[in-house]
């Protein structure tokens, strides 16, 4: 029997606008004292009315454009009616019939994943369960969310992960959200079932399951993989196929590494959507859409192509394009140069020394500390500098802003290429290492040891290549 997983993803991205979706309250809610960022609107008090956040709407369109969506010139909000204690108004303002963005796509290694929509909505409050009580915190109530709904085009957990990575990268690139799954600013709900082709050619679909509470990327993968296996096993034991009423909602238990049944018969949920009478329809003219498109930065895919044209490896290009700060820094350091050698040099420093330094100090890259001239200066003298010295210099430039060439001079980091001085060292090395000289005569590769000794007595200041040349000349 051939089995193919069918996976769709609903992703919620919390926008990092200053204020909430429908009121002026501060949208920050992570580690904020409960119910301090609230007002009549986000508390859903009687008589309060929503005013849509212009920036949030534009960002939703911006994301839509980044995902290749069509932007609806006229859209409107709708009410989704349901009861939940932390849903202040008894309905959520969202978009159903006419969302801002529809019909986009993401290319995952050549496999096109269709995106049904990227629509605008508001977050709910938070229920906090303590000692048998449920407390309500409305700081999150009304925080802007964009929901990105994929078509069920993904066929593996691995592909789902790549899709999420890519989506996260785009969202961060265009600067509309931190998209941090652990902090909840990006949330993912996979819907999974399996297409099974029996040996006699019969095609069966297992019942749909929507998985909630997945709080990490690994969790998403594990949950999908678990669910695929569970559904195949389940079908083999009960032979129940998908129908219009047997969709279930399952929770993800990360500790037990398994999903569990939360709600059955999801097909019957009725949210009684209708157009939100408190908000007039919203229009984006072609010109406005074009203006928003102009604000889109170059996206990771385009960056990678560009970097590869500079002869960078897939690995280097991918790593630099991974986040917008790094690619920005790379391009800043590179300046107008199109020299592949300089590009490789710069990429190595950023992906190597700088990245290691950031990891060690647990800091984020600071684009202001990148001095393009310093990169060029170091590059121009790289033949006189050891790789260790180069790393040291770029870190000095990054941390203290000091001119690397002056620093190198003051700290004797330039390698000695002066043959006179080096000959002196070489003679010493030959005299004090007769055994090694013997070895060299038998095997020219043993020169390495002598070069090492030369470096040692010159305290590292010797240019190893010049030193090697002189040693070989003297031993001829």
């Amino acid at each position, binding site marked *: 029997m051939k089995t193919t997983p069918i996976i769709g993803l609903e992703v919620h991205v919390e926008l990092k606008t200053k204020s909430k979706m429908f009121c002026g309250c501060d949208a920050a809610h992570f580690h904020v004292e409960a119910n301090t960022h609230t007002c*009549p609107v986000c508390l859903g*008090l*009687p008589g309060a*009315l929503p*005013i849509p956040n212009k920036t949030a709407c534009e960002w939703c369109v911006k994301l839509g454009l980044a995902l290749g969506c069509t932007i609806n010139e006229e859209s409107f909000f709708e009410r989704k009616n349901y009861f939940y*204690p932390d849903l202040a108004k*008894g309905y959520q303002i969202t978009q159903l019939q006419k969302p801002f963005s529809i019909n986009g796509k993401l290319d995952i290694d050549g496999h096109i994943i269709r995106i049904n929509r990227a629509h605008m909505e508001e977050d709910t409050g938070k229920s906090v369960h303590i000692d048998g009580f449920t407390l309500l915190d409305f700081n999150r109530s009304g925080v802007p969310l964009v929901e990105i709904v994929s078509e069920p085009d993904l066929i593996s957990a691995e592909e789902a992960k790549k899709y999420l990575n890519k989506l996260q990268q785009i969202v961060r690139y265009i600067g509309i959200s931190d998209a941090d799954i652990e902090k909840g600013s990006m949330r993912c709900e996979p819907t999974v079932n399996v297409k099974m082709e029996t040996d006699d050619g019969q095609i069966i679909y297992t019942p749909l399951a929507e998985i909630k509470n997945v709080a990490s990327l690994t969790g998403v993968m594990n949950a999908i993989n678990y669910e695929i296996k569970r559904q195949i096993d389940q079908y083999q034991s009960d032979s129940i196929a998908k129908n219009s009423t047997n969709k279930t909602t399952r929770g993800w238990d990360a500790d037990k590494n398994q999903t569990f049944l939360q709600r059955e018969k999801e097909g019957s949920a009725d949210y*009684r959507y209708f157009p939100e*009478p408190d908000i007039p329809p919203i229009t984006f003219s072609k010109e406005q859409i074009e203006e928003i498109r102009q604000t889109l930065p170059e996206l990771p895919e385009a960056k990678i192509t560009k970097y590869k044209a500079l002869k960078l490896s897939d690995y280097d290009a991918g790593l630099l394009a991974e986040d917008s700060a790094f690619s920005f820094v790379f391009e800043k350091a590179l300046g107008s140069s199109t020299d592949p050698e300089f590009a490789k040099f710069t990429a190595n420093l950023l992906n190597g020394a700088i990245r290691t330094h950031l990891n060690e100090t647990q800091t984020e890259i600071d684009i202001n500390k990148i001095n393009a001239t310093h990169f060029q200066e170091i590059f121009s003298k790289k033949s006189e500098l050891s790789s260790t010295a180069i790393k040291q210099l770029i870190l000095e430039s990054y941390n203290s802003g000091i001119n690397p060439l002056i620093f190198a001079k003051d700290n004797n980091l330039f390698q000695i290429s002066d043959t006179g001085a080096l000959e002196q060292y070489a003679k010493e090395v030959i005299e004090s290492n007769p055994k090694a000289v013997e070895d060299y005569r038998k095997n020219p590769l043993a020169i390495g040891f002598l070069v090492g000794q030369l470096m040692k007595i010159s305290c590292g200041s010797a240019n190893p290549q010049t030193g090697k040349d002189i040693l070989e000349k003297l031993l001829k």
Partner: protein
Amino acid sequence: MAILKQPLPLKNKMTDLFKLTLKESKEGLKSKKFTAVELVQSCLDRINSVDKKLNSFVTITGENALKEAENSDISLPLGGIPIAIKDNYLTVGLRTTASSKVLDQYIAQYNATAVEKLKKAGAIIIGKTNMDAWAHGSSTETSDYGPSLNPWNTGHLPGGSSGGSAAAIAADETIISVGSETAGSIRQPSSWCGVVGFKPTYGRVSRYGIIAMKSSTDSPGPICKTVDDAAVLLEIMSGNDVHDATSINEKPWIRPEMKKNLNGIKIGLPSCYFPKEIQSEVKAAVLMAVETLKKLGAEVIELTDVLDPKYSIAVYTILQRSEVSSNLARFDGVRYGHDRSYFGQEAKRRIMLGTYSLSAGYYDAYYLKAQKVRTLICQDFDNQFQKVDAIIGPVSPTTALKLGAAEGQSMFGEIQDMLVEPSSIAGLPGISIPCGFDKIGLPIGLQIITPQRREDLVYQIAKLFEDNTEYHLQRPKL
């Protein structure tokens, strides 16, 4: 909140200050004939003596109002003037119930924009007026605090839902008042109580802080003793509000210059606004008004092709129930003190019907179709206003009905409001002004409707009519 039992002694035996209009009150205050305290006291005394009978008020502010009066700045447009506010306007520090026990103890944390503006203009809230619970009705009989009664005849209803405000004005319990209309709730009680009710264009007055009923047509507006008083209030209440996305993006409305006559004005008289069931005295009074308007120079044209208002009943019912079912969801028992069992029969009926009409499989047949018919109604008005500048007609097919008339009639309100529903659905401005009395002395109201944002014309016609008639000078004997 207690009613003040000991009236303060007044100078010059000016015990009838409560009878004054806004204009007269302002003149009296300015010329120091009396003080704001005396004016407020006079209204409180009046409330004290008649409200047990009428039940116009749910809450009375008493001493607080007097304290405010002491510090009032009479140079403000409404400085020192007592105002009665319909109990669906949120007022800080003063409970707001919408006449439902669900909100029996609810004290709002913020003022409605309209309240804020009225207070800033110096008005002194003397109480919150009774209404149909959640504004569901046209009689005040669905109020959880008992019905208000018609000051002209306490065996009759005041109309609704702003029945408390209309009764309070008719009974001189206050100088000015505000109500709100979703489909008739300002004009119909004003008609039944013989006062002036001015329903502005949808979005002219902010809805922010007014407990939502049918959000897409809710229109707050004044109920007063004269056209000018109502117009002054509308000037103060109107204007764009950053808290209401549906508010018209215009500066506050101001009264236009008065016309000497109605020369050149074409007024339409839809024949279908005189249905078979219409009370003959109502018809006669409105036709008499037509003659008056003609004498003033207007050309009155009979409109024979106006969309029958009966269609509005169905449209309004579906849309209103749908929005109500959603708007009342927030009163879920988690907050506000009382749970959903405190909802009265009428609210429960509306929530159920609205929930049904929005449900999957019914949405297209009900909600969506109703929206389409709404568009047709709007288009019909557009067409009519190609032919005429304004439309007039009776506000209600009858004068005030007897107490208990609404009982067992779940569509009572819709039928009573049939003649004001089409213009409400289309978001048009309109006014109800007194134009006569029936044989038992109950008032009859004339409505004047214009295209959106043409309150200027509503005002000019109404004011000229009022200046040339004396119906508005009649007061009930209490």
